[in-house]
């Protein structure tokens, strides 16, 4: 029915959770994370209380194991639930209730916990952990590798599933996110989720880029606006004002409303600076 992984990136302090499930709107119920605190997956007759209260308990200083013990003690049907918790120190706690539908179980390693229920075999959660450990790079992509491995190990064979991923930074406002993406009711939830994550990471790179935006926007399939403006912004980065101006005039000839857009954008105190230099010429 559901497989998920919670994990902490020991270097960046990011924490995250990724899940795939046959249940509609999975991520809205299963995936919980808070910057500088931890990440939680709550599934199998999902009780969102484990996510909501669990993050509060960990934020107040509880070790994941103590938080989970307390939540279970307050739950009359704890034997139905499956939960995984990780904090920003990489400490984990998990439970697979005795009444979870088999195959159901969990496994933990250094800074991660994988759990699954109503799947083909214990290979599913084992494969998630192995794939997470074997993958390097951004936490979001390591979480996706774990989901792919679960699917390859038998995963969820009943079709039209949902998936989601939530990764939060270490030091940030409580509302900040690295990625927070959802797929609903898809025949190919994991491919869809990977496409979303790769696009989200590409937008992040684009926003921080110094030159090279045009290639990035085209390769990553960014929006028409990004594709249209990238060559102009690239030219401005190298102070090639005449090129930038020529490209801008071509763009406006094609769609006059870009001129209004540029004039408004120029009024932005920070983001408007390159556009102001463009329009002043």
């Amino acid at each position, binding site marked *: 029915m559901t497989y998920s992984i919670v994990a902490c990136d020991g270097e960046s302090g990011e924490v995250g959770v990724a899940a795939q499930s046959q249940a*509609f*709107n999975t991520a*809205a119920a299963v995936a919980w994370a808070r910057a500088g605190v931890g990440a939680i997956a709550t599934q199998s007759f999902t*009780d*969102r*209380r484990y*996510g*909501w*209260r669990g993050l509060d308990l960990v934020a107040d200083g509880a070790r994941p194991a103590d938080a989970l013990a307390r939540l279970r003690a307050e739950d009359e049907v704890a034997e139905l639930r499956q939960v995984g918790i990780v904090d920003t120190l990489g400490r984990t706690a998990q439970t697979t209730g005795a*009444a979870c*539908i*088999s195959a159901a179980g969990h496994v933990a390693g250094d800074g991660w916990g994988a759990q699954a229920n*109503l799947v*083909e075999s214990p290979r599913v959660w084992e494969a998630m952990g192995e794939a997470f450990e074997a993958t390097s790079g951004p936490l979001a992509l390591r979480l996706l590798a774990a989901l792919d491995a679960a699917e390859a190990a038998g995963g969820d*064979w*009943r*079709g*039209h599933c949902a998936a989601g991923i939530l990764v939060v930074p270490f030091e940030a*406002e*409580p*509302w*900040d*996110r690295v990625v*927070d*993406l*959802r*797929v*609903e*009711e898809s025949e190919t939830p994991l491919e869809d989720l990977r*496409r*979303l994550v790769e*696009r*989200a990471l590409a*937008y992040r790179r684009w926003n921080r880029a110094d030159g090279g935006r045009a290639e990035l926007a085209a390769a990553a399939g960014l*929006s*028409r*606006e990004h594709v249209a403006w990238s060559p102009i912004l690239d030219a401005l980065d190298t102070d090639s004002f005449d090129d930038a101006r020529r490209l801008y005039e071509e763009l406006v000839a094609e*769609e006059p*409303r870009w001129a*209004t*857009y540029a004039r*408004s*954008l120029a*009024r*932005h*105190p*920070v*983001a*408007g600076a390159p556009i102001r230099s463009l329009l002043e010429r």
Partner: protein
Amino acid sequence: MTYSIAARDADTRELGIAVQTRFFAVGQTVPWARPGVGAVATQAFADRRYGALGIELLAAGRSPQAALDELTASDAEAAVRQVGVVAADGRSAAHTGAACVPAAGHITGEGFSAQANMMRTEEVWPAMAEAFAASRRPLPWRLLDALDAAEAAGGDFRGKQSAAILVVRGEPSERPWDDKLLELRVDDHPEPLSELRRLLELADGYRALLQLREGDPPPEAVAAVRRLPELDVRWSETYAALRDGDVERARALVRPLFESEPRWRGYVASLAARGLLPHADELLRE
């Protein structure tokens, strides 16, 4: 760039936001709501601070206008922001910064705020308000009606990419973790509103499926379930047949599944072992 509506349902007191934009994954940024407090849409160089702190200020007793005044006063880039706020008591306020890209504007009224920027025309936000006032449907559908009206009135000149809808209970319950009634996101799609409509129908269908299992569903729930994927309809009918003790009918329903995919037998056995499917043993005995 974006059009959105934040609103309260005067009857149910539910609070919600719906939004569509030519921007990636809008649902993680624009909509904010808390039961008994209010709803906020923050867009145009969207700053989540307006959502998170806006809700806190409303909870602390500020009016929507006072909350917005405080937030814009402490934001050096307030001129590029657009924000709509509705409080649980129906008061509303909005801010469209002077540097928002035209056509940009908002309209507020009792129980709603509709706002849009970077539109083709200035008809977009009045069209949202009109559609919302005219719709008699449940709040999620009224919000979607407003978005449809915005798109029909011109929408965003650069196209469309993502949409989202968030609805919370009118008053906080004793289980605050369950107070979010609906949270649907379309993160990257050529037709975000059509996809949002499809998901909303599915959400209605799955809610109705639970009513169906509990017995005595209203007629609209039966209709909503029929719109679910064939597999879900088949299983809901199987559950109903087994609950009524009609093993023959249940057998006829699952036979094609068992024949096409042997793992369904294991699935039924797992449910049976946990007592979750009545007469499951007979179902497995062909």
